[in-house]
């Protein structure tokens, strides 16, 4: 916390010399050793650390892959296969990078839902939340461009579908589209610039992560009670308490990661991406990577192209506005008996939208009967997407402001240490 005085005392002569010139050891000590963390943080709070691990893994494996990859439409597919077959440990590094993207998103979604449940976006942490949203947006952009690089069928048509979204903008859309693609279709110039940006953006993300952590250390961490730190009783120093807990969680995360990399490395990919891109033949079923499916479902829920595109971007934009949509005085949904059930529905909605995004647009969820033309009558994927997309937006724009005013929250503990003591006594019986 900002009012937390530095307790670092340089021990050796060299440390003293450096501390007077560039107090970098002091910064590290105050941020990661003596930094006071709420003593009641649960395992959902370990995903921040896990995410920094993910970013590190992606940057390191990415730099290595770039040493062997060729960003050229004729050579890209074969150069990736050469990494898989001939480069020493190439298959390992590529599988870690490809599955790492999925693990990164898995972790970031848990991190975001945790922030949502415990009200970590509420004052004074609005800027912290906004920086997180920017990181998430940059992650989507980076992942999308990275998926194009192997130049398989899904890479190619993913790039085609997403860049064409820009073409929906009236008047200037087509010119921007040509500018973005560097030609009249997705082709070699598009691949080249995506490679350049895919290499750049992770470092931009790392920069915003520094700001995110800075903002976190100004306000201090939120905690499961949502009650701010009141005294020294409420906290424990970051090291060893948070470090060992984060470390343990990271190891379990790495075990799950390893199961994917070593035993199901292509489970989260798509078979069509092992077919080299062919601009003249569209695969019969185009799906983005799983972490983008909810947004894809929202895009397809609307028959109008422009409105679909706008809604899809609005679905991301509304997350940015969250701190100003929640009217509740209580942060944590632990003490919000009504809101927490809307939260559960919201999580299910996101999963449901993800499922819809993976289906064919003409599919039926179930059909009760057929009409006289033989067309099924029942719940179509499009209709289900529309219902779920409505709830997605209603959750932010109607339920958040309204329930916050109407709900009677449960009594909130006076301090973190009181809450910890209470749960301790309860466990004892």
């Amino acid at each position: 916390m900002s009012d937390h005085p530095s307790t670092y005392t340089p021990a050796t002569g060299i440390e003293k010399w450096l501390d007077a010139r560039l107090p970098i050891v002091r910064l590290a000590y105050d941020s990661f050793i003596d930094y006071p963390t709420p003593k009641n943080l649960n395992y959902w709070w370990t995903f921040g650390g896990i995410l920094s691990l993910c970013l590190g893994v992606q940057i390191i494996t990415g730099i290595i892959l770039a040493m062997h990859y060729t960003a050229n439409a004729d050579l890209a597919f074969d150069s990736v296969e050469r990494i898989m077959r001939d480069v020493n440990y190439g298959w390992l590094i590529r599988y870690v990078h490809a599955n790492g993207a999925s693990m990164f998103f898995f972790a970031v979604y848990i991190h975001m839902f945790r922030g949502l449940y415990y009200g970590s976006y509420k004052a004074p942490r609005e800027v912290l939340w906004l920086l997180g949203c920017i990181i998430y947006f940059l992650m989507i952009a980076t992942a999308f461009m990275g998926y194009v690089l192997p130049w398989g069928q899904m890479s190619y048509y993913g790039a085609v579908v997403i860049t064409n979204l820009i073409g929906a903008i009236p008047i200037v859309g087509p010119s921007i589209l040509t500018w973005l693609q560097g030609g009249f279709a997705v082709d070699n110039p598009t691949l080249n610039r995506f490679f350049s940006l895919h290499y750049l953006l992770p470092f931009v993300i790392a920069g915003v992560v520094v700001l995110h952590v800075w903002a976190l250390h100004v306000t201090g961490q939120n905690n499961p009670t949502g009650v701010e730190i009141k005294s020294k009783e409420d906290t424990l120093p970051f090291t060893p308490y948070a470090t060992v807990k984060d470390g343990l969680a990271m190891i379990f995360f790495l075990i799950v990661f390893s199961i994917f990399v070593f035993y199901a490395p292509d489970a989260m990919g798509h078979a069509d991406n092992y077919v080299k891109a062919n601009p003249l033949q569209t695969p019969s079923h185009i799906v983005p990577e799983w972490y983008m499916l909810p947004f894809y479902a929202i895009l397809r829920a609307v028959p109008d192209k422009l409105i679909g595109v706008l809604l899809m971007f609005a679905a991301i934009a509304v997350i940015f506005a969250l701190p100003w949509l929640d009217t509740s005085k209580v942060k944590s949904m632990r003490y919000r008996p009504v809101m927490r059930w809307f939260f559960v529905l919201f999580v299910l909605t996101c999963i449901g939208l993800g499922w819809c995004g993976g289906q064919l647009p003409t599919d039926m969820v179930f059909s009760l009967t057929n009409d006289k033309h033989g067309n099924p009558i029942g719940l179509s994927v499009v209709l289900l997407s529309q219902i779920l997309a409505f709830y997605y937006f209603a959750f932010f724009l109607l339920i958040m402001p309204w329930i916050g005013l109407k709900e009677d929250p449960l009594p909130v503990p006076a301090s973190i240490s009181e809450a910890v003591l209470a749960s301790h006594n309860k466990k004892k019986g």
Partner: protein
Amino acid sequence: MSEPENGGGQDPNRRDFIYIAAGAGAAGAAAMVAVPLIGQMNPAADTLALASIEYDLSKVEEGMQAVVKWRGKPLFVRYRTKKEIADAKAVDVKSLRDPQTDAERVKAGHEQYLVLIGVCTHLGCVPNFGTGEYGGWFCPCHGSEYDTSGRIRQGPAPKNLEVPEYSFLSDTKIKVG
């Protein structure tokens, strides 16, 4: 920030003008630098130079379709059956999302040949022929359906499949672009 001394006895308006002019110059310089930095992303000369192509229609049999690559996009050249032409003409133009008669989409005297850019007007996928309810093309990405004239009939696409600029050099040869 403290105001500098009013040195040299200059009047404040003149001083402000100099600051504003210098600031505007710097902004102008930044804008001028941005022109090449942004403009380089537009299609390069070799990309723009993609020439027009000639295509020999005798290779396409009745009821078949050839796919040719043109400017990096697929070009459909379809020899339509009598039934397909009749179906296309029978449609009530007023009922269409993007109203166009079949005659506007083919060359007079060559109604059997339909030349289209095979890119769905929704999000750019390549539609397949022969599936879908309207006897024409069906886009596998988001389910847009086109009729035997390549006009949008159902699904999210806003426009008909685009007919490129082309002309008949002879009865069996066209020049596209």
